[in-house]
């Protein structure tokens, strides 16, 4: 008991030292005179809003970079670190603090780990004590001499196994094994005596309980027969069933409730829950099994849904099947054009047109690149006029005609919408 108390005291000491270190660490960090050190001290306590589990100090994202610059500016302006932290909290909420303030729900984050550790230690201590108690010699239970004698005969091999129940047989075998171990020198005399007394007591108890036949509910194989007093009300077993039923019902209802809200039709290759639950983007689309036509169709759908990354993926896969697929080239061209790569886009359109000289998508895109990004308006008009020579929907025709008219006007007046906006340099 004494050792346990001193161990407890030592543990408390260690915990206090650790807590002290934790409290002192940020203070020591903020103590640096250097502006950069102070900035880092503040930034390392803030959560980067666009990363997973990185501080503003550690993140390389553009936003974190700007936040660090902001902190630096504010420090220069004479703001205190806690004022700066308060500023970020007022914009992003408590979420932005890597260590929540010990108030309200945030207090849980500070208290629960300690409580958990205490509970774990307590649980471990309790379990250890129970184990040590269990291995101690059993309390003296009066073992009827007759039963004991019968067991000893059985162990010595005098009793036929057939007359023993399975449980009794088990005890007898354990005793025989114990004796063998003792003979082989694996057990000390003291241990042997202790264990033998224990096993014999158990075996005798088993013998007794089998002799007083099944009037009781079968008890779990305890060493001493339980003389359970008559109970009132339903037995614990009924309660167990009821509780399990209630739990299963609740669980089923919860599953039904959450699943119906969370599961939705998923697109090819997407995860079951998708971003509805986890907030993560869809998994890389599994496109290996799709044929060319489906790939193109999916790519077009992704483009319509503004999911350009997936669209690129589908079209690239399509080009792996057929390196000169015109629609894929033209669609990639449109994406490249949007992404600000006019020269690559133009190449893509030209590849598409090489295979299919009248592909509307490619003609339209080529005109767009030439007109908007390269200033080669005359060539753009030529591409669009080829397009207009084809069978187009009324809406498309109007759009192309309008673009051609605008391009002509630009050639005539050399004014473009872009030039109406006053150029401003950063």
């Amino acid at each position, binding site marked *: 008991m004494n050792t346990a108390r001193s161990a407890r005291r030592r543990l408390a000491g260690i915990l206090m030292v650790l807590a002290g270190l934790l409290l002192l660490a940020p203070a020591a960090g903020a103590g640096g005179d250097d502006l950069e050190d102070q900035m880092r001290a503040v930034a390392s306590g803030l959560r980067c*809003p*666009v990363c*997973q589990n990185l501080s503003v100090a550690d993140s390389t*994202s*553009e*936003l974190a970079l*700007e*936040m660090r*610059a*902001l902190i630096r500016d504010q420090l220069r302006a004479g703001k205190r670190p806690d004022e700066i932290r308060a500023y970020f*909290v*007022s*914009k*992003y*909420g408590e*979420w*932005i603090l890597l260590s929540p303030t010990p108030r309200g729900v945030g207090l849980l984050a500070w208290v629960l780990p300690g409580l958990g550790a205490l509970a774990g230690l307590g649980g471990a201590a309790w379990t250890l004590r129970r184990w040590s108690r269990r291995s101690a010699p059993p309390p003296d239970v009066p073992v009827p001499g007759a039963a004991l004698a019968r067991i000893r005969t059985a162990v010595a091999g005098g009793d036929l196994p057939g007359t023993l129940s399975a449980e009794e047989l088990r005890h007898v075998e354990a005793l025989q094994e114990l004796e063998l171990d003792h003979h082989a020198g694996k057990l000390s005399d003291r241990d042997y005596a202790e264990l033998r007394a224990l096993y014999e007591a158990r075996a005798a108890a088993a013998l007794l309980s089998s002799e007083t036949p099944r009037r009781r509910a079968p008890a779990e194989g305890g060493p001493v027969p339980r003389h359970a007093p008559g109970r009132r009300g339903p037995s*614990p*077993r009924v*309660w*167990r069933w009821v*509780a399990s039923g209630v*739990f299963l019902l609740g669980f089923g209802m*919860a599953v039904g409730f*959450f699943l119906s*809200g*969370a599961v939705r039709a998923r697109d090819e290759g997407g995860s079951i829950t998708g*971003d509805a*639950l*986890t*907030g993560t983007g869809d998994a890389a689309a599994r496109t290996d099994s799709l044929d060319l036509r489906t790939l193109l169709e999916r790519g077009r759908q992704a483009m319509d849904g*503004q*999911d*350009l990354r997936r669209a690129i993926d589908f079209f690239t896969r399509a080009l792996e099947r057929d390196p000169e697929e015109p629609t894929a080239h033209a669609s990639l061209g449109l994406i490249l054009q949007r992404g*600000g790569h006019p020269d690559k886009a133009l190449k893509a359109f030209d590849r598409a047109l090489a295979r299919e000289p009248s592909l509307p998508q490619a003609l339209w895109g080529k005109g767009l690149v030439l007109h*908007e990004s390269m200033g080669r308006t005359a060539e753009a008009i030529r591409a669009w006029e080829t397009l207009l020579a084809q069978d187009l929907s009324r809406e498309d025709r109007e759009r192309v005609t309008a673009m051609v008219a605008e391009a002509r006007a630009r050639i005539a007046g050399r004014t473009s*919408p*872009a030039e109406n*906006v*006053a150029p*401003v340099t*950063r």
Partner: protein
Amino acid sequence: MAWKRLLLVFGIGAPLIAVLAFGFTRDPREIASPLIGRQAPPFDVRLADGRALALADLRGRVVFLNFWASWCPPCRAEARALEASWRRHREQEVVFLGVNMQDREDAAREFLREFGITYANGLDGGNRIAIDYGVWGIPETFILDRTGRITYKHVGALGGETIHAKLEEALRGEVSRLEGKGEYRSIR
């Protein structure tokens, strides 16, 4: 014994599962804004046409404040709806103001031209305005009532009907308790 086990299951297991299940329903990236219902942070911004604009000058009108970037697909998705809503509401006491962030200026201008945007757009060079509004995803939209109070915040692409409904609420001075959410991209 049975009671102990039951206690273990219901006292520890069930709450633990409940907490984990609740965690799965949350988007860990989502940051609830503390700004809703408060006065909008003031700012001055340089517009794409070279003029300067102060938010304070817009007091007395409902402001539709939209943070966007040309590289963000949901921003492209909502661009036409925003322009259409602007045309629909410009006769009312409503101002649309876009704030371009984390972007190249030429790309931003290209975006404005591509979608034929006619409402005012500011260029937030250092992203200080965005940080001041606690922006973390893009697009993000704030609606301010006539007194300059934030009545609604939406993360992600917006549709015309939502814009209309929320502008009407702001014109009446009603504050939405909940943030809206559409498809968004995390900013960089």
